Protein backbone atom coordinates (compact mmCIF):
# COMPACT_ATOMS: atom_id res chain seq x y z
CA UNK A 1 0.00 0.00 0.00
CA UNK A 2 2.69 2.44 1.07
CA UNK A 3 4.80 1.85 -2.04
CA UNK A 4 1.71 2.22 -4.16
CA UNK A 5 1.23 5.57 -2.46
CA UNK A 6 4.69 6.79 -3.39
CA UNK A 7 4.07 5.72 -6.88
CA UNK A 8 1.06 7.91 -7.17
CA UNK A 9 2.75 10.94 -5.72
CA UNK A 10 5.00 10.86 -8.75
CA UNK A 11 2.12 10.84 -11.22
CA UNK A 12 -0.61 12.94 -9.67
CA UNK A 13 -3.52 11.88 -11.82
CA UNK A 14 -6.80 10.37 -10.79
CA UNK A 15 -7.70 6.80 -11.55
CA UNK A 16 -9.58 8.01 -14.58
CA UNK A 17 -6.47 9.76 -15.81
CA UNK A 18 -7.69 13.28 -15.15
CA UNK A 19 -5.30 15.77 -13.55
CA UNK A 20 -6.39 16.54 -10.02
CA UNK A 21 -4.61 19.79 -9.25
CA UNK A 22 -2.30 19.61 -6.22
CA UNK A 23 -4.26 16.84 -4.55
CA UNK A 24 -3.77 13.27 -5.64
CA UNK A 25 -6.33 10.52 -5.61
CA UNK A 26 -4.53 9.19 -2.54
CA UNK A 27 -5.05 12.46 -0.70
CA UNK A 28 -8.77 12.17 -1.21
CA UNK A 29 -8.75 8.56 -0.08
CA UNK A 30 -6.93 9.68 3.06
CA UNK A 31 -9.56 12.34 3.59
CA UNK A 32 -12.21 9.63 3.43
CA UNK A 33 -10.40 7.59 6.05
CA UNK A 34 -9.81 10.55 8.36
CA UNK A 35 -13.45 11.47 8.01
CA UNK A 36 -14.31 8.36 9.99
CA UNK A 37 -13.57 10.61 12.95
CA UNK A 38 -15.64 13.50 11.68
CA UNK A 39 -17.95 13.46 14.66
CA UNK A 40 -15.50 13.50 17.57
CA UNK A 41 -15.61 16.22 20.18
CA UNK A 42 -19.31 16.63 19.42
CA UNK A 43 -21.04 19.22 21.58
CA UNK A 44 -24.42 20.86 21.38
CA UNK A 45 -22.64 24.18 20.78
CA UNK A 46 -21.11 23.51 17.34
CA UNK A 47 -21.85 19.81 16.85
CA UNK A 48 -19.62 18.38 14.13
CA UNK A 49 -17.53 21.50 13.41
CA UNK A 50 -14.33 20.35 15.20
CA UNK A 51 -14.03 17.01 13.40
CA UNK A 52 -15.16 18.49 10.11
CA UNK A 53 -12.35 21.03 10.28
CA UNK A 54 -9.70 18.69 11.58
CA UNK A 55 -10.17 15.99 8.92
CA UNK A 56 -9.44 18.39 6.10
CA UNK A 57 -6.23 19.86 7.50
CA UNK A 58 -3.67 17.48 5.92
CA UNK A 59 -5.11 17.99 2.44
CA UNK A 60 -5.51 21.71 2.95
CA UNK A 61 -1.87 22.07 3.96
CA UNK A 62 -0.89 20.31 0.77
CA UNK A 63 -2.72 22.92 -1.28
CA UNK A 64 -1.64 26.02 0.60
CA UNK A 65 1.75 24.88 1.87
CA UNK A 66 2.93 27.11 4.68
CA UNK A 67 0.57 29.99 4.11
CA UNK A 68 -0.45 30.64 7.69
CA UNK A 69 -2.96 33.25 6.72
CA UNK A 70 -4.98 30.83 4.60
CA UNK A 71 -4.77 28.16 7.24
CA UNK A 72 -6.21 30.49 9.88
CA UNK A 73 -9.00 31.61 7.62
CA UNK A 74 -9.77 28.06 6.65
CA UNK A 75 -9.87 26.76 10.20
CA UNK A 76 -11.95 29.67 11.34
CA UNK A 77 -14.75 29.46 8.80
CA UNK A 78 -14.93 25.71 9.09
CA UNK A 79 -15.34 25.99 12.86
CA UNK A 80 -18.79 27.46 12.29
CA UNK A 81 -21.72 25.29 13.28
CA UNK A 82 -21.95 22.07 11.29
CA UNK A 83 -24.34 19.17 11.63
CA UNK A 84 -25.05 16.73 8.89
CA UNK A 85 -25.11 13.00 8.35
CA UNK A 86 -21.48 11.79 8.69
CA UNK A 87 -21.21 10.20 5.20
CA UNK A 88 -22.64 13.30 3.64
CA UNK A 89 -20.19 15.33 5.70
CA UNK A 90 -17.38 13.50 3.91
CA UNK A 91 -18.92 14.39 0.59
CA UNK A 92 -19.11 18.01 1.67
CA UNK A 93 -15.48 17.96 2.76
CA UNK A 94 -14.60 16.80 -0.73
CA UNK A 95 -16.55 19.68 -2.21
CA UNK A 96 -14.92 22.23 0.10
CA UNK A 97 -11.39 21.04 -0.66
CA UNK A 98 -12.03 20.99 -4.38
CA UNK A 99 -13.24 24.57 -4.24
CA UNK A 100 -10.26 25.59 -2.10
CA UNK A 101 -7.94 24.02 -4.62
CA UNK A 102 -9.53 26.04 -7.41
CA UNK A 103 -9.05 29.18 -5.28
CA UNK A 104 -12.71 29.99 -5.27
CA UNK A 105 -13.78 32.93 -3.18
CA UNK A 106 -13.91 31.81 0.48
CA UNK A 107 -17.25 33.52 1.06
CA UNK A 108 -18.69 31.36 -1.69
CA UNK A 109 -17.17 28.21 -0.26
CA UNK A 110 -18.54 29.06 3.16
CA UNK A 111 -21.95 29.62 1.61
CA UNK A 112 -21.87 26.26 -0.06
CA UNK A 113 -20.71 24.58 3.14
CA UNK A 114 -23.43 26.18 5.23
CA UNK A 115 -26.18 25.90 2.65
CA UNK A 116 -25.74 22.26 1.75
CA UNK A 117 -25.31 20.51 5.07
CA UNK A 118 -28.99 20.73 5.91
CA UNK A 119 -30.41 19.09 2.76
CA UNK A 120 -27.60 16.56 2.81
CA UNK A 121 -28.47 15.65 6.40
CA UNK A 122 -32.00 14.88 5.23
CA UNK A 123 -30.76 12.65 2.43
CA UNK A 124 -28.12 10.92 4.52
CA UNK A 125 -30.45 10.25 7.42
CA UNK A 126 -33.03 8.72 5.06
CA UNK A 127 -30.44 6.42 3.61
CA UNK A 128 -28.26 5.51 6.55
CA UNK A 129 -30.44 5.75 9.63
CA UNK A 130 -33.85 4.98 8.18
CA UNK A 131 -33.10 2.47 5.46
CA UNK A 132 -29.77 0.68 5.83
CA UNK A 133 -30.02 0.27 9.60
CA UNK A 134 -33.51 -1.28 9.67
CA UNK A 135 -32.78 -3.64 6.79
CA UNK A 136 -29.40 -4.75 8.10
CA UNK A 137 -30.76 -5.09 11.61
CA UNK A 138 -33.73 -7.10 10.40
CA UNK A 139 -31.61 -9.52 8.43
CA UNK A 140 -29.08 -9.98 11.22
CA UNK A 141 -31.79 -10.35 13.84
CA UNK A 142 -33.53 -13.04 11.85
CA UNK A 143 -30.29 -15.02 11.97
CA UNK A 144 -29.36 -13.99 15.50
CA UNK A 145 -32.66 -14.83 17.14
CA UNK A 146 -31.81 -18.50 17.01
CA UNK A 147 -28.35 -17.71 18.37
CA UNK A 148 -26.43 -17.99 15.11
CA UNK A 149 -23.30 -15.82 15.10
CA UNK A 150 -23.91 -15.20 11.39
CA UNK A 151 -26.24 -12.48 12.66
CA UNK A 152 -23.61 -10.18 14.20
CA UNK A 153 -21.04 -11.19 11.58
CA UNK A 154 -23.22 -10.03 8.71
CA UNK A 155 -24.02 -6.85 10.64
CA UNK A 156 -20.35 -6.10 11.21
CA UNK A 157 -19.48 -6.90 7.60
CA UNK A 158 -22.18 -4.64 6.18
CA UNK A 159 -21.12 -1.76 8.40
CA UNK A 160 -17.48 -2.24 7.53
CA UNK A 161 -18.45 -1.56 3.93
CA UNK A 162 -20.75 1.28 4.96
CA UNK A 163 -18.05 2.81 7.15
CA UNK A 164 -15.41 2.64 4.44
CA UNK A 165 -17.84 4.04 1.88
CA UNK A 166 -16.66 7.39 3.23
CA UNK A 167 -13.72 6.99 0.85
CA UNK A 168 -16.21 6.83 -2.00
CA UNK A 169 -18.09 9.86 -0.72
CA UNK A 170 -14.87 11.86 -0.40
CA UNK A 171 -14.05 11.18 -4.05
CA UNK A 172 -17.63 11.84 -5.09
CA UNK A 173 -17.64 15.23 -3.37
CA UNK A 174 -14.22 16.16 -4.66
CA UNK A 175 -15.30 15.18 -8.17
CA UNK A 176 -18.47 17.21 -8.02
CA UNK A 177 -16.45 20.20 -6.87
CA UNK A 178 -18.46 23.31 -7.35
CA UNK A 179 -19.62 22.21 -10.78
CA UNK A 180 -23.03 20.76 -10.33
CA UNK A 181 -24.07 22.16 -6.99
CA UNK A 182 -27.53 23.06 -8.17
CA UNK A 183 -28.11 19.56 -9.47
CA UNK A 184 -27.05 18.19 -6.07
CA UNK A 185 -29.92 20.11 -4.58
CA UNK A 186 -32.36 18.81 -7.18
CA UNK A 187 -31.27 15.21 -6.94
CA UNK A 188 -31.21 15.37 -3.16
CA UNK A 189 -34.94 16.02 -3.36
CA UNK A 190 -35.71 12.99 -5.52
CA UNK A 191 -33.30 10.69 -3.73
CA UNK A 192 -34.62 11.71 -0.32
CA UNK A 193 -38.13 10.92 -1.44
CA UNK A 194 -37.12 7.58 -2.96
CA UNK A 195 -35.18 6.67 0.18
CA UNK A 196 -38.20 7.68 2.22
CA UNK A 197 -40.41 5.33 0.26
CA UNK A 198 -38.00 2.46 0.67
CA UNK A 199 -37.51 3.18 4.36
CA UNK A 200 -41.21 3.43 5.06
CA UNK A 201 -41.92 0.21 3.20
CA UNK A 202 -39.35 -1.57 5.30
CA UNK A 203 -40.70 -0.10 8.52
CA UNK A 204 -44.14 -1.30 7.51
CA UNK A 205 -42.70 -4.76 7.09
CA UNK A 206 -40.94 -4.64 10.43
CA UNK A 207 -44.20 -4.15 12.30
CA UNK A 208 -45.56 -7.67 11.78
CA UNK A 209 -42.09 -9.19 11.98
CA UNK A 210 -40.88 -7.72 15.20
CA UNK A 211 -43.65 -6.26 17.30
CA UNK A 212 -45.43 -8.86 19.38
CA UNK A 213 -48.75 -7.97 20.95
CA UNK A 214 -51.20 -10.77 21.55
CA UNK A 215 -53.73 -11.66 24.19
CA UNK A 216 -53.30 -14.90 26.10
CA UNK A 217 -55.02 -17.99 24.75
CA UNK A 218 -56.76 -18.27 28.06
CA UNK A 219 -58.56 -14.96 27.56
CA UNK A 220 -61.90 -16.06 26.14
CA UNK A 221 -65.37 -14.59 25.84
CA UNK A 222 -68.92 -15.55 24.93
CA UNK A 223 -71.35 -17.54 27.03
CA UNK A 224 -69.52 -20.81 26.59
CA UNK A 225 -66.10 -19.16 26.41
CA UNK A 226 -65.52 -20.74 23.04
CA UNK A 227 -63.69 -17.90 21.28
CA UNK A 228 -60.41 -16.43 22.40
CA UNK A 229 -60.21 -12.67 22.30
CA UNK A 230 -57.11 -12.93 20.16
CA UNK A 231 -58.91 -15.02 17.53
CA UNK A 232 -61.34 -12.16 16.91
CA UNK A 233 -58.48 -9.76 16.20
CA UNK A 234 -56.85 -12.37 13.97
CA UNK A 235 -60.07 -12.79 12.07
CA UNK A 236 -60.31 -9.06 11.44
CA UNK A 237 -56.70 -8.91 10.31
CA UNK A 238 -53.53 -10.65 11.47
CA UNK A 239 -51.07 -8.36 13.22
CA UNK A 240 -53.70 -5.68 13.63
CA UNK A 241 -52.71 -5.20 17.27
CA UNK A 242 -49.01 -4.54 16.56
CA UNK A 243 -50.08 -2.09 13.89
CA UNK A 244 -52.45 -0.36 16.29
CA UNK A 245 -49.82 -0.14 19.02
CA UNK A 246 -47.27 1.40 16.68
CA UNK A 247 -49.79 3.99 15.55
CA UNK A 248 -50.85 4.71 19.11
CA UNK A 249 -47.25 5.39 20.13
CA UNK A 250 -46.71 7.38 16.95
CA UNK A 251 -49.71 9.52 17.83
CA UNK A 252 -48.38 10.09 21.35
CA UNK A 253 -45.12 11.33 19.88
CA UNK A 254 -46.69 13.36 17.12
CA UNK A 255 -49.70 14.89 18.78
CA UNK A 256 -48.70 14.99 22.43
CA UNK A 257 -44.94 15.33 21.94
CA UNK A 258 -44.56 12.59 24.51
CA UNK A 259 -41.15 11.83 25.95
CA UNK A 260 -39.78 8.48 24.89
CA UNK A 261 -38.72 7.76 28.46
CA UNK A 262 -42.29 7.90 29.74
CA UNK A 263 -43.54 5.84 26.87
CA UNK A 264 -41.10 3.04 27.56
CA UNK A 265 -41.91 3.15 31.25
CA UNK A 266 -45.61 3.11 30.41
CA UNK A 267 -45.20 0.07 28.23
CA UNK A 268 -43.32 -1.78 30.95
CA UNK A 269 -45.95 -0.94 33.54
CA UNK A 270 -48.89 -1.87 31.33
CA UNK A 271 -47.15 -5.10 30.37
CA UNK A 272 -46.69 -6.00 34.02
CA UNK A 273 -50.35 -5.19 34.62
CA UNK A 274 -51.40 -7.39 31.69
CA UNK A 275 -49.24 -10.15 33.10
CA UNK A 276 -50.79 -9.72 36.54
CA UNK A 277 -54.31 -9.91 35.08
CA UNK A 278 -53.32 -12.93 33.03
CA UNK A 279 -54.58 -11.25 29.88
CA UNK A 280 -51.35 -11.60 27.93
Amino acid at each position, binding site marked *: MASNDENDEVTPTAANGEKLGKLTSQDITKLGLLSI*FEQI*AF*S*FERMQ*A*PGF*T*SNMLPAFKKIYGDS*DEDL*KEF*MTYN*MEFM*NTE*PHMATLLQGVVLSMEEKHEDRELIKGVRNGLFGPLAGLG*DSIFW*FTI*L*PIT*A*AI*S*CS*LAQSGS*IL*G*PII*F*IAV*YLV*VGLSRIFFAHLGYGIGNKALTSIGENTK*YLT*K*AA*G*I*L*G*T*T*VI*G*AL*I*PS*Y*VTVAFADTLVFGVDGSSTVQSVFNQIMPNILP*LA*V*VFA*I*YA*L*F*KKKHANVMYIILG*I*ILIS*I*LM*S*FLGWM
Partner: protein
Amino acid sequence: MQITLVQGLLMLLVGFICSIDQQTEAFYWFRPMVASFFTGIVLGDVQLGVQCGAVAELAYLGMTNVGGTVPPDPLFAGIMTVVLAYTTGQTPEAALGLSYPFALLAQALGILFKTLYSFVPHKLDAYAAEGNVKSFNGLIVAVTVLQSLVFGVVIFLCVYALQAPIQAFVNAFPTWVTHGFEIAGGVLPAVGLAMLLLTTLKPETYPYLFIGFIVECVLANIVTSDGTAVFANVLPVAVLGTALAAINYAYEKKIDETAAKISSVSNGGDSDGI
Protein backbone atom coordinates in the same frame (compact mmCIF):
# COMPACT_ATOMS: atom_id res chain seq x y z
CA MET B 1 -23.90 -16.77 37.13
CA GLN B 2 -21.11 -14.67 38.58
CA ILE B 3 -19.02 -12.25 36.62
CA THR B 4 -15.32 -12.37 37.44
CA LEU B 5 -13.07 -9.36 37.87
CA VAL B 6 -11.21 -10.22 34.66
CA GLN B 7 -14.48 -10.34 32.77
CA GLY B 8 -15.43 -7.04 34.33
CA LEU B 9 -12.19 -5.43 33.19
CA LEU B 10 -12.60 -6.87 29.70
CA MET B 11 -16.03 -5.30 29.65
CA LEU B 12 -14.40 -1.97 30.50
CA LEU B 13 -12.33 -2.41 27.35
CA VAL B 14 -15.34 -3.41 25.24
CA GLY B 15 -17.22 -0.42 26.63
CA PHE B 16 -14.35 1.92 25.79
CA ILE B 17 -14.01 0.70 22.20
CA CYS B 18 -17.73 0.68 21.47
CA SER B 19 -18.07 4.13 23.03
CA ILE B 20 -15.40 5.53 20.70
CA ASP B 21 -17.40 3.99 17.85
CA GLN B 22 -20.55 5.55 19.25
CA GLN B 23 -19.00 9.00 19.30
CA THR B 24 -17.75 8.66 15.74
CA GLU B 25 -20.62 6.56 14.33
CA ALA B 26 -17.83 4.84 12.46
CA PHE B 27 -18.73 1.16 12.20
CA TYR B 28 -21.87 0.87 14.32
CA TRP B 29 -20.26 -1.29 17.00
CA PHE B 30 -22.30 0.71 19.49
CA ARG B 31 -25.46 -1.01 18.27
CA PRO B 32 -26.77 -3.83 20.49
CA MET B 33 -26.26 -6.36 17.69
CA VAL B 34 -22.50 -5.94 18.02
CA ALA B 35 -22.10 -4.83 21.64
CA SER B 36 -24.14 -7.79 22.91
CA PHE B 37 -22.11 -10.14 20.75
CA PHE B 38 -18.85 -8.88 22.26
CA THR B 39 -20.36 -9.10 25.74
CA GLY B 40 -21.38 -12.70 25.06
CA ILE B 41 -17.82 -13.50 24.02
CA VAL B 42 -16.40 -11.96 27.20
CA LEU B 43 -18.89 -13.81 29.40
CA GLY B 44 -18.27 -17.08 27.60
CA ASP B 45 -21.86 -17.50 26.41
CA VAL B 46 -21.79 -16.34 22.79
CA GLN B 47 -25.22 -17.70 21.94
CA LEU B 48 -26.85 -15.79 24.77
CA GLY B 49 -25.04 -12.67 23.64
CA VAL B 50 -26.26 -13.07 20.10
CA GLN B 51 -29.85 -13.71 21.14
CA CYS B 52 -29.90 -10.74 23.52
CA GLY B 53 -28.40 -8.64 20.74
CA ALA B 54 -31.31 -9.50 18.46
CA VAL B 55 -33.88 -8.63 21.10
CA ALA B 56 -32.23 -5.34 22.08
CA GLU B 57 -31.38 -4.28 18.54
CA LEU B 58 -35.03 -4.45 17.55
CA ALA B 59 -36.20 -2.51 20.58
CA TYR B 60 -33.64 0.26 19.98
CA LEU B 61 -34.03 0.37 16.19
CA GLY B 62 -35.59 3.80 16.25
CA MET B 63 -33.30 5.18 18.96
CA THR B 64 -31.17 7.23 16.61
CA ASN B 65 -29.17 10.37 17.28
CA VAL B 66 -30.62 12.06 14.24
CA GLY B 67 -30.25 15.79 14.53
CA GLY B 68 -27.72 15.41 17.31
CA THR B 69 -30.20 14.19 19.89
CA VAL B 70 -29.35 11.62 22.56
CA PRO B 71 -31.80 8.69 22.94
CA PRO B 72 -31.90 6.03 25.65
CA ASP B 73 -28.55 4.45 25.09
CA PRO B 74 -28.39 1.43 22.75
CA LEU B 75 -24.85 0.55 23.81
CA PHE B 76 -25.72 0.20 27.49
CA ALA B 77 -28.94 -1.59 26.56
CA GLY B 78 -27.02 -4.08 24.45
CA ILE B 79 -24.43 -4.80 27.11
CA MET B 80 -26.72 -4.88 30.13
CA THR B 81 -29.35 -7.10 28.50
CA VAL B 82 -26.74 -9.81 28.14
CA VAL B 83 -25.31 -9.19 31.60
CA LEU B 84 -28.72 -9.32 33.28
CA ALA B 85 -29.81 -12.42 31.39
CA TYR B 86 -26.50 -14.03 32.34
CA THR B 87 -26.44 -13.13 36.00
CA THR B 88 -30.13 -13.49 36.84
CA GLY B 89 -31.08 -16.29 34.47
CA GLN B 90 -33.97 -14.31 32.99
CA THR B 91 -35.00 -14.62 29.32
CA PRO B 92 -33.50 -12.09 26.92
CA GLU B 93 -36.92 -10.40 26.64
CA ALA B 94 -37.23 -9.92 30.37
CA ALA B 95 -33.60 -8.86 30.65
CA LEU B 96 -34.21 -6.21 28.02
CA GLY B 97 -36.92 -4.65 30.16
CA LEU B 98 -34.69 -4.79 33.24
CA SER B 99 -31.84 -3.13 31.37
CA TYR B 100 -33.89 -0.05 30.74
CA PRO B 101 -32.71 2.02 33.76
CA PHE B 102 -29.12 1.55 32.59
CA ALA B 103 -30.00 2.85 29.14
CA LEU B 104 -31.49 5.94 30.79
CA LEU B 105 -28.40 6.40 32.94
CA ALA B 106 -26.16 6.37 29.89
CA GLN B 107 -28.49 8.74 28.06
CA ALA B 108 -28.12 11.21 30.90
CA LEU B 109 -24.36 10.77 30.82
CA GLY B 110 -24.31 11.42 27.07
CA ILE B 111 -26.34 14.59 27.38
CA LEU B 112 -24.09 15.73 30.18
CA PHE B 113 -20.94 15.35 28.10
CA LYS B 114 -22.36 17.03 25.01
CA THR B 115 -23.44 19.96 27.16
CA LEU B 116 -20.25 20.26 29.17
CA TYR B 117 -18.15 19.98 26.03
CA SER B 118 -19.58 23.25 24.80
CA PHE B 119 -16.43 24.84 26.14
CA VAL B 120 -14.37 22.88 23.61
CA PRO B 121 -15.23 24.80 20.40
CA HIS B 122 -14.32 28.08 22.08
CA LYS B 123 -10.85 26.77 22.82
CA LEU B 124 -10.67 25.43 19.25
CA ASP B 125 -11.65 28.83 17.86
CA ALA B 126 -8.62 30.25 19.56
CA TYR B 127 -6.32 27.59 18.14
CA ALA B 128 -7.86 28.18 14.72
CA ALA B 129 -7.15 31.88 14.93
CA GLU B 130 -3.54 30.98 15.67
CA GLY B 131 -3.42 28.29 12.98
CA ASN B 132 -2.28 25.94 15.75
CA VAL B 133 -3.07 22.57 14.19
CA LYS B 134 -1.31 20.47 16.81
CA SER B 135 -3.21 21.86 19.79
CA PHE B 136 -6.41 21.79 17.79
CA ASN B 137 -6.12 18.09 17.07
CA GLY B 138 -4.77 17.35 20.50
CA LEU B 139 -7.77 18.79 22.27
CA ILE B 140 -10.40 17.04 20.22
CA VAL B 141 -8.69 13.70 20.63
CA ALA B 142 -8.30 14.22 24.35
CA VAL B 143 -11.95 15.00 25.06
CA THR B 144 -13.04 12.08 22.93
CA VAL B 145 -10.86 9.63 24.79
CA LEU B 146 -11.91 11.06 28.12
CA GLN B 147 -15.62 10.57 27.39
CA SER B 148 -15.12 6.98 26.33
CA LEU B 149 -13.01 6.24 29.36
CA VAL B 150 -15.80 7.43 31.63
CA PHE B 151 -18.28 5.26 29.73
CA GLY B 152 -15.96 2.27 30.08
CA VAL B 153 -15.63 2.75 33.80
CA VAL B 154 -19.36 3.16 34.30
CA ILE B 155 -19.89 -0.07 32.39
CA PHE B 156 -17.38 -1.81 34.61
CA LEU B 157 -19.29 -0.63 37.66
CA CYS B 158 -22.66 -1.70 36.34
CA VAL B 159 -21.40 -5.06 35.18
CA TYR B 160 -19.11 -6.06 37.99
CA ALA B 161 -19.70 -4.01 41.12
CA LEU B 162 -23.51 -3.98 41.04
CA GLN B 163 -24.09 -7.63 40.24
CA ALA B 164 -24.89 -8.83 43.73
CA PRO B 165 -27.56 -6.23 44.57
CA ILE B 166 -29.10 -6.59 41.09
CA GLN B 167 -29.31 -10.35 41.45
CA ALA B 168 -30.96 -10.04 44.83
CA PHE B 169 -33.36 -7.43 43.52
CA VAL B 170 -34.41 -9.43 40.47
CA ASN B 171 -34.68 -12.71 42.34
CA ALA B 172 -37.27 -11.08 44.55
CA PHE B 173 -39.60 -10.57 41.60
CA PRO B 174 -42.70 -12.75 41.44
CA THR B 175 -43.09 -14.53 38.07
CA TRP B 176 -45.87 -12.21 36.93
CA VAL B 177 -43.45 -9.32 37.09
CA THR B 178 -40.80 -11.04 35.02
CA HIS B 179 -43.44 -12.27 32.59
CA GLY B 180 -44.54 -8.64 32.39
CA PHE B 181 -41.02 -7.69 31.36
CA GLU B 182 -41.15 -10.38 28.69
CA ILE B 183 -44.39 -8.94 27.30
CA ALA B 184 -42.79 -5.51 27.32
CA GLY B 185 -39.84 -6.95 25.40
CA GLY B 186 -42.22 -7.89 22.60
CA VAL B 187 -43.89 -4.47 22.57
CA LEU B 188 -40.81 -2.28 22.85
CA PRO B 189 -39.80 -2.54 19.17
CA ALA B 190 -43.02 -0.62 18.54
CA VAL B 191 -41.41 2.39 20.20
CA GLY B 192 -38.43 2.28 17.89
CA LEU B 193 -40.60 1.88 14.83
CA ALA B 194 -42.88 4.72 15.88
CA MET B 195 -39.82 6.93 16.29
CA LEU B 196 -38.60 6.00 12.82
CA LEU B 197 -42.03 6.85 11.47
CA LEU B 198 -41.81 10.31 13.01
CA THR B 199 -39.32 11.24 10.32
CA THR B 200 -40.19 8.96 7.43
CA LEU B 201 -43.98 9.18 7.48
CA LYS B 202 -45.24 11.87 5.14
CA PRO B 203 -48.39 12.10 3.06
CA GLU B 204 -46.57 10.63 0.09
CA THR B 205 -44.92 7.76 1.97
CA TYR B 206 -48.00 6.73 3.94
CA PRO B 207 -49.25 4.23 1.34
CA TYR B 208 -45.93 2.43 1.34
CA LEU B 209 -46.11 1.78 5.06
CA PHE B 210 -49.22 -0.25 4.47
CA ILE B 211 -47.83 -1.98 1.41
CA GLY B 212 -44.81 -3.07 3.42
CA PHE B 213 -47.02 -4.14 6.29
CA ILE B 214 -49.40 -6.24 4.22
CA VAL B 215 -46.68 -7.86 2.14
CA GLU B 216 -44.71 -8.84 5.23
CA CYS B 217 -47.88 -10.22 6.87
CA VAL B 218 -48.10 -12.50 3.86
CA LEU B 219 -44.42 -13.40 3.74
CA ALA B 220 -44.29 -14.14 7.45
CA ASN B 221 -47.04 -16.72 7.06
CA ILE B 222 -45.55 -18.70 4.23
CA VAL B 223 -44.13 -21.83 5.75
CA THR B 224 -42.68 -25.05 4.45
CA SER B 225 -44.35 -28.32 5.26
CA ASP B 226 -42.23 -28.66 8.42
CA GLY B 227 -43.44 -25.28 9.61
CA THR B 228 -40.30 -23.18 9.15
CA ALA B 229 -40.74 -19.79 7.56
CA VAL B 230 -39.63 -19.59 3.95
CA PHE B 231 -38.83 -15.90 4.15
CA ALA B 232 -36.71 -15.41 7.21
CA ASN B 233 -36.41 -11.65 7.08
CA VAL B 234 -37.55 -8.43 5.46
CA LEU B 235 -35.03 -8.46 2.62
CA PRO B 236 -37.69 -9.40 0.04
CA VAL B 237 -39.78 -6.43 1.17
CA ALA B 238 -36.70 -4.24 0.94
CA VAL B 239 -36.17 -5.40 -2.64
CA LEU B 240 -39.80 -4.65 -3.39
CA GLY B 241 -39.52 -1.29 -1.67
CA THR B 242 -36.51 -0.45 -3.80
CA ALA B 243 -38.51 -1.28 -6.90
CA LEU B 244 -41.40 0.90 -5.76
CA ALA B 245 -39.06 3.74 -4.87
CA ALA B 246 -37.44 3.50 -8.29
CA ILE B 247 -40.82 3.59 -10.03
CA ASN B 248 -41.79 6.65 -8.02
CA TYR B 249 -38.43 8.29 -8.74
CA ALA B 250 -38.97 7.81 -12.48
CA TYR B 251 -42.46 9.35 -12.41
CA GLU B 252 -41.52 12.31 -10.25
CA LYS B 253 -38.59 13.07 -12.50
CA LYS B 254 -40.54 12.58 -15.72
CA ILE B 255 -43.24 14.96 -14.53
CA ASP B 256 -40.79 17.64 -13.46
CA GLU B 257 -38.61 17.28 -16.52
CA THR B 258 -41.58 17.44 -18.87
CA ALA B 259 -42.72 20.53 -17.03
CA ALA B 260 -39.25 22.09 -17.20
CA LYS B 261 -39.06 21.41 -20.93
CA ILE B 262 -42.41 23.08 -21.58
CA SER B 263 -41.59 26.04 -19.37
CA SER B 264 -38.36 26.72 -21.19
CA VAL B 265 -40.03 26.30 -24.58
CA SER B 266 -42.93 28.57 -23.68
CA ASN B 267 -40.60 31.12 -22.18
CA GLY B 268 -38.60 31.00 -25.36
CA GLY B 269 -41.79 31.53 -27.31
CA ASP B 270 -42.62 34.54 -25.19
CA SER B 271 -39.32 36.22 -25.77
CA ASP B 272 -39.72 35.62 -29.49
CA GLY B 273 -43.08 37.35 -29.31
CA ILE B 274 -41.75 40.48 -27.70
